[in-house]
């Protein structure tokens, strides 16, 4: 295992943690343990999926994003808004007003992920056609999915779409363009993302495979929502300004619709969302049972990015609103020539992603086998209740923790109770014998 320090947007507030183990049970990568009545996240295993944030009833797991004041460090401030943002408002709020409200937060320029959706679809098709020997190609937009593959499905790393996500492509494109057009230096321009999930915050602070400096920070939709809402109330009574929108590009927030767009005569696409479904699909891909697909859209959250829990609206309601906007909106044509040139020049390429093996018991297979034998032996003594009272997610995980020196058999409360009862009985019998 490497000793790299991992940044995570999902963090534990120790003072609020009661050690209840709710988070331990729902973690998709078994990254959480309760030790000394406090939850601890293993940074090497966490994929920022956010299951634990939802499960915690004590506000002890808080997903962090940057503070909005960060933008004041820069002379020219740019926001790139995630597509799911536009599904967060009641239907009387127009697309234009929702976008205008972001300017009001203090940005000089507001751009949308949706602007490059069409371009992304073209790139995906091109990439799939160039890599026919690597079926299926797996989408790389969801940072949780990419990290999940690095952790649990390293054999599938070559199948990942090795091209930057749309918000990063825009960042690359805008940084150069603004420098040229406005005569600014690179460090005078601050480019920020408005994101639907903590995984995107993590990806901004610790991008995987990025060749160049990308964004300067990420703000949660939920964090700016209050402020944005106030601006919207005011803006709704004012004449609508001339704001460019990209309703057709909003499909990026919906994993199913995105797969439908990539799907064409020579490309078969599949879509799966929700982290448990994603894990199941990846396991099937590993078994070569989904080789009939050329491209698979994978999103950790329900319905895609609309399900990210920095959103304030329910994922199904948000999806329905976005679908309505796509249907009713008129698209602004985007000149893709410059983007295409950058793509051809390899400017959007991602460095080959490397595995983050967490599954193996040891680097050396002989030692791993010895540990596996010990693990199996310990497992036979454990009660098999998977009660989580020890602080590990299952009896198997506790056995694994014991083998790895991270826990002891005394952590099992069921066994401890059994032994205690037995020793009390023994004492009792001894005393009776002495009396006789």
């Amino acid at each position, binding site marked *: 295992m490497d000793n790299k320090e991992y940044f995570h947007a999902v963090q534990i507030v120790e003072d609020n943690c009661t050690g209840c183990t709710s988070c331990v049970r729902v973690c998709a990568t078994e990254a959480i343990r309760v030790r000394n009545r406090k939850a601890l996240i293993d940074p090497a295993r966490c994929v920022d999926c956010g299951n634990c944030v939802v499960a915690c009833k004590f506000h002890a797991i808080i997903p962090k994003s940057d503070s909005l004041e960060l933008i004041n460090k820069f002379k020219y401030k740019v926001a790139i808004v995630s597509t799911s943002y536009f599904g967060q408002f009641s239907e009387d709020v127009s697309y234009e007003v929702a976008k205008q409200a972001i300017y009001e937060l203090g940005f000089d320029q507001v751009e949308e992920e949706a602007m490059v959706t069409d371009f992304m679809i073209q790139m995906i098709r091109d990439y799939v056609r160039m890599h026919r020997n690597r079926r299926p190609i797996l989408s790389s937009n969801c940072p949780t999915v990419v990290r999940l593959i690095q952790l649990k499905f390293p054999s599938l790393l070559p199948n990942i779409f090795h091209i930057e996500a749309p918000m990063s492509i825009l960042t690359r494109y805008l940084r150069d363009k603004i420098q040229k057009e406005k005569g600014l230096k690179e460090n005078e321009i601050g480019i920020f993302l408005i994101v639907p999930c903590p995984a995107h915050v993590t990806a901004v602070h610790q991008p995987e495979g990025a060749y160049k400096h990308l964004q300067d920070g990420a703000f949660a939709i939920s964090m700016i929502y209050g402020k944005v809402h106030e601006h919207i109330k005011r803006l709704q009574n004012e004449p609508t300004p001339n704001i460019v929108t990209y309703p057709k590009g909003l499909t990026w927030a919906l994993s199913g619709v995105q797969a439908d767009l990539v799907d064409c005569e020579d490309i078969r696409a599949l879509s799966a969302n929700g982290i448990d479904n994603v894990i199941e699909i990846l396991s099937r891909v590993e*078994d070569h049972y989904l080789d009939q697909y050329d491209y698979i859209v994978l999103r950790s959250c329900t319905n895609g990015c609309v399900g990210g829990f920095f959103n304030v609206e329910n994922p199904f309601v948000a999806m329905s609103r976005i679908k309505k906007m796509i249907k009713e909106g008129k698209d602004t044509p985007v000149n893709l020539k410059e983007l295409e040139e950058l793509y051809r020049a390899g400017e959007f390429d991602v460095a080959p992603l490397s595995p983050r093996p967490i599954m*193996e018991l040891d680097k050396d*297979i002989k030692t791993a086998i010895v540990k*596996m034998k010990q693990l199996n032996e310990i497992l036979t003594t454990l009660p098999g209740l998977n009660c989580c009272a020890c602080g590990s997610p299952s009896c198997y995980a506790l056995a694994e923790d014991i083998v790895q020196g991270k826990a002891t058999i005394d952590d099992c409360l069921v066994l401890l109770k059994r032994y205690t009862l037995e020793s009390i009985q023994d004492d009792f019998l001894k005393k009776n014998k002495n009396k006789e």
Partner: protein
Amino acid sequence: MLDYAVAESDMAEFWYIRPGYEHAVQKHFKNQQEPEVSLESLIREKDFNEAGKGSAEVKNLLKRLGVNPDILRRIAVAAYEAEINVAAHSLGGAMLSNIYPDRIHMVFLDNGPGIADIEQAMMPGFSTADEMVRELGFGAGLGLPNIKKNTDALHIVSEAGDSTMLEFLVFFNNNGQ
């Protein structure tokens, strides 16, 4: 290796050894070494909800041992195919996985009714799967050829009207050493 009688006349047998692996395969069957770790699971007839769980379990175990990802995928495919074969075509059976430091030996034993013609069953596209199995998306006749493609040694012994034993070996190093 499981013992079996060779004298019976209706018995069919099939052997495949990947070229270059003859010595290693021979050594495996000759030495009858005790496996380091074993896993066993039942395979129920036509239970397609459960079928595949045994091979998934083996896959997880191999990941914990740090087996090379490409070799792991070959084992996963062969194990899954063999498990589904037992569920789809037989009256049910069991699978046994024996893990050694350098290889895995998997044995699938069913309760009948046996394969009438193994050579034919090895042909890509040949299938005896019934309607129910095909409706579930299985039975495309790719099972056995797919197992052969992914293993270093494959051995099938079957008796018409009786049980079938399928066993295969996959080495963790690409050269079988």
